[in-house]
């Protein structure tokens, strides 16, 4: 029938066609950039007249690119740690707590996902200017943490909801203290959720463009901000090589995630 491929009749070829075209559409820019980054043409000719690694060399020979990468790593890592530190206890309160307005609090914690980033960006821009924090590490971390926190809360709440609280009670009745039960039983049991929370928090910060644009100063820029300012001037192939590195990173993360999920799948 309509949900059975073999019995669907000729209509399935239409679906196949749309499927293949969509897959190509989704792959097109990703594959194209990767190919372009090795092309020798300054003017992004395609197919390239020759092949080269000079655009990659250009990244690492330019201290502005290296510094922005380093800044992004530091910010994203700090955001990841703080996002778990704030999100984990918050998720416990949301799942275990029985206080009035619990759903409202839940909605509040995920609201940064709903408020358009541009609004958060200009609000924070005004805010950090007032306190002279613009272009500081703290400003980047605070801004990115706002958008990372919902991911952390959602991931941990989901896995904590799937964890039966009586298992923790069983540990306590077995003689474990409350803290032992949480650290030896509950947290290990929801570790996949915590791992996802950390990963998404890191990525949320690592990829954040808009907040970065408004938090940055000429002296402190994250990688996306550096890409943005460069892109607004010209379409240099250096961006292609930076993008390709980012795509490679995405693939590595996808493989690690798939591997971990398979290994820890319950």
């Amino acid at each position, binding site marked *: *029938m*309509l*949900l059975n*491929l073999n019995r669907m009749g000729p209509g399935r070829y239409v*679906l*196949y066609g*749309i*499927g293949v075209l*969509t897959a190509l*559409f*989704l*792959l097109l*820019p*990703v594959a*194209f*950039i990767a190919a372009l980054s090795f092309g020798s043409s300054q003017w992004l000719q*395609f197919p390239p007249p020759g092949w080269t690694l000079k655009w990659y060399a250009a990244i690492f020979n330019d201290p502005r690119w290296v510094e922005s990468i380093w800044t992004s790593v530091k910010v994203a890592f700090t955001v990841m740690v703080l996002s778990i530190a*704030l999100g984990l*206890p*918050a998720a*416990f*309160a*949301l799942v275990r*707590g*029985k*206080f009035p307005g619990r759903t409202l609090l*839940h909605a509040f914690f995920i609201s*940064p996902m*709903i*408020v*358009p*980033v*541009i*609004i*958060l*960006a*200009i*609000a924070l821009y*005004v*805010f950090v200017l007032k306190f002279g924090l613009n272009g500081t590490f703290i400003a980047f971390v605070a801004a990115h*943490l*706002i958008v990372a*926190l919902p991911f952390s809360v959602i991931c941990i709440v989901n896995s904590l909801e799937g964890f*039966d609280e*009586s298992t923790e009670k069983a540990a306590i009745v077995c003689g474990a203290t409350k803290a032992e039960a949480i650290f030896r039983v509950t947290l290990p049991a929801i570790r996949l959720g915590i791992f996802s929370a950390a990963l998404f928090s890191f*990525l949320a910060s690592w*990829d954040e*463009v808009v907040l970065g644009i408004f938090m940055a100063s000429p002296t402190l820029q994250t990688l*996306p901000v550096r*890409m*943005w300012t460069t*892109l607004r001037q010209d*379409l240099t192939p250096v*961006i*292609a090589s*930076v*993008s*390709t590195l980012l795509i490679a990173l*995405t693939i590595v993360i*996808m493989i690690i995630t798939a591997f971990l999920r398979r290994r820890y799948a319950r």
Partner: protein
Amino acid sequence: MFEAISNNPYRNLRAPRVGLRRLRPALPALIFLFVFMVVPLSSLLLLSVTKPETGLGNYISLLGDATYARVLLNTFIIAALVTLVTLVIAYPVAWLLAILPSRVSQIFFAIILLSMWTNLLARTYGWMVLLQRTGVINRALMGVGLIDQPLPLINNLAGVTIGMTYIMLPYVILPLHATISGIDPAIMQAAAITGAKPRQIFWHVMLPLSLPGIGAGCMMVFVMALGYYVTPALLGGTSNMMLAEMIAQQVQSLLNWGLGSAAAFILLAVTLVFYAIYVRAIGLGRVR
């Protein structure tokens, strides 16, 4: 009440008063969001009614001035267009994914994740290069003789629509796939055995049953598209500027803080209205 409590002693171990104590772990996150989100947003709201002078002047000029009103209209048109195009592509893809053998669909999901997780600027850059006047797409079309002159594909509505559709596709495919996979095939078999033709089954059974996924996906894309900044700024043109870009321009370049904040609050209000409709229809629990 009594039944509920004693049936489930595990969940109701503490009386409500003690429950408030369990709010304490949420306090750090709560305080953080209050200081860095609520306070800045509130002061922004204050700016919108005090700069340059106290009153609703900014809002009046935003809604009254033809230039600004056009931006608002543009924003809605583009968001609606992107939502529609995304849905038309995503529905057959989600359908296909629901019936493909899982080994094949796994590959497709990997492609979706790759595109979704690749840095936004990297993807947008790819489209900038592909769509430019001398870009691969124009050259290919001219090469096969379909066109004589390069098509204007960038810095206009076409560029924004292509770029945004590309970004939004996964957000519709994934929930739609979940909904369609959740439909019990027996329901369709029941429809067939009672005499319905495939086309009738699609319109009267399958489509209505996938409405929750369609609604969730479309609402999400529409709301996201309303406030999108990066892609329209890079792929769009000045004649179809969107609200987010105008806000950034007012605040950053023109230092017109009052007007920028007022525009931000119009955007926020519109977003929240649509979000409220979305939550009403789908329930907060499913918003993830």
